[in-house]
């Protein structure tokens, strides 16, 4: 028995080593770093040990702005993306003729570089000759300064992110839809189920495990949003930092302000938030399963 488990660990060794080097060690270092005042990554010197970084962090209005923005982002993007993806997945699934074509088209955002997508969306959001303002103009809506005015920066980011995150969700839901037996739908037909009720009472409950999975993965991903901000606002966080997110804040503190300790403290806070959110989610869904 002992021997057997020892052999097992040898097989696991490569991935354990990689995990330790690239996940566990940086995690521990970041936590340690967050308690070192004026830490320098060049020579490893520091001036104090304690909560100075956290004090600085919680005094910084930009950090709170990033917290607020990230929360808004998560609350808007995750549910909207899941609802829209569900709808589109069901539509694609019912479309017999061009199923393969649409499956590919909807998956494109997932495999395309965020930077490239960002360039396209910058053009679409352009206030003078962008597609979005043109479309809105058809309904008599005045051109919106999507990317140049602080109050529109977050909405622009959210629209962009919803579109981008749908690809993965649609893929998951399409896979889930394949697992629902055809006979259940036939039975529903015999039972004279109205179309919308088939969707709400049969399709959605059958996809519940995929919806939970997508929301957990989507939420964790959304809390770590950075690429989308970077690509949409060309490396900035929107006009007057109006679309700053937690990870962007951490990035900015680390690479632009050289405040390594504060950046580390920010990462620890983000880590705790994600940890708490996933715990709540797992508990809620776990309890549902029991019932």
């Amino acid at each position, binding site marked *: 028995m002992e021997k057997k488990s020892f052999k097992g660990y040898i097989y696991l060794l490569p991935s354990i080593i990689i995990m330790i080097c690239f996940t566990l060690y940086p995690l521990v270092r970041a936590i340690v770093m967050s308690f070192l005042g004026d830490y320098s990554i060049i020579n490893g010197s520091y001036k104090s040990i304690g909560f100075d970084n956290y004090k600085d962090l919680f005094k910084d209005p930009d950090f709170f702005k990033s917290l607020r923005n990230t929360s808004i982002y998560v609350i808007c993007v995750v549910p909207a993306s899941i609802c829209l993806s569900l709808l589109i997945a069901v539509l694609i699934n019912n479309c017999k003729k061009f199923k393969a074509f649409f499956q590919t088209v909807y998956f494109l955002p997932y495999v395309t570089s965020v930077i490239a997508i960002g360039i396209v969306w910058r053009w679409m959001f352009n206030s003078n000759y962008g597609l979005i303002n043109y479309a809105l103009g058809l309904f008599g809506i005045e051109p919106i300064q999507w990317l140049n005015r602080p109050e529109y920066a977050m909405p622009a980011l959210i629209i962009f992110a919803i579109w981008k995150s749908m690809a993965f969700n649609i893929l998951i839901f399409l896979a889930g839809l394949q697992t629902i037996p055809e006979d259940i739908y*036939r*039975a529903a037909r*015999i*039972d*004279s189920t109205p179309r919308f009720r088939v969707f709400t009472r049969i399709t959605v409950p059958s996809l519940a495990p995929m919806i939970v999975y997508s929301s957990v993965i989507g939420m964790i991903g959304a809390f770590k949003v950075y690429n989308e901000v970077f690509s949409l606002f060309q490396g900035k966080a929107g006009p007057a930092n109006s679309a700053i997110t937690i990870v962007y804040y951490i990035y900015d503190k680390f690479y632009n302000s050289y405040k390594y300790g504060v950046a580390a403290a920010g990462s620890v806070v983000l880590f705790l938030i994600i940890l708490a959110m996933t715990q709540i989610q797992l508990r809620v869904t776990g309890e549902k399963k029991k019932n």
Partner: protein
Amino acid sequence: MDIRIENLTKTYGNLNAVDHMSLNIKDGELVGLLGPSGCGKSTTLFMLSGLTTPTTGKIFFGDKDVTSIPPEDREIGLVFQNYALYPHMTVEDNITFPLINRGVKKPQAKEMALEMAKVVKIDQLMNRKPGELSGGQQQRVAIARALVKKPQVLLLDEPLSNLDAKLRVETREEIRRIQQEVKITTIFVTHDQEEAMSISDRIAVMKEGVLQQYEVPQTMYLNPANIFVSRFLGTPEINNIEIDVKDGVITADGVELRRGVSLADGHYKAGVRPESFHVAEGGISLGVEGIRMTGRDLLIFSKFGNETIRVLVHSYMQVNPGDKVEVSVREGHILVFDDADKLIGRF
């Protein structure tokens, strides 16, 4: 509700899954659609349900032509082979679902569901999910769900194929009991001849999309329309032998089987069921090649001409391989078929 099927045909590519089928089913009858897999029996059932559209032909429920009426408006209950219960709903929700879809108020729907659950004896399981039920219980839920909307016709697709042997016998009696209690015209599909014969009022035997015979079970068993039907019904399978008729005497392999029959001279195909033999001194002498004890009967294998034939005798009879038994065929139990495999008569 009387059901009339007229010239029903379903074509897939260039294959006729169902080929010009015509059938009349009387109100309140239990009809078994019987045949080997791929014979078109399930296709027929799904055309009756409306889930499959016929290529040509008509279906009447009563005097009403329902051929182009969608399944939801046909007033049918359908039980799927795998039951197709809604897995995330409780038993009660499964049964009330069709009622609520039809606009029945929730309290009334619950009452009707409970009533139907009592008929199929699952009223103790109303709060369970399908995953927590046995196969037999799931089937009862499926039947209750099909019957709760008070349909005119109940359709069952291979209702017993997912159950184990003991439960199968139990459940088929249950289906019969429920059908009698609700007094509903019922059509079920099966490939098991014993199942079909034991509970059906009438059986429709199909082969390669063509209806072979539609008859009361006992009549069909005794007077199969053709060799296919004679072989399909009954276990152990009927013995097929070649016979010669000359001057009213039937002989097979040189052995006289019957005299004084009114049949034209010639060579015929014949069938003799294993239980049609009885032990008789001075009868046909058969060498015993093997025996199988089945309980009530003893099955003897013997060479007759070039064929191995099966003979059933009472289980108290003491025979061993190598022994000789003398048997004769009961009066009227030699089934004689013509060149087209059709039954000519029994002698």
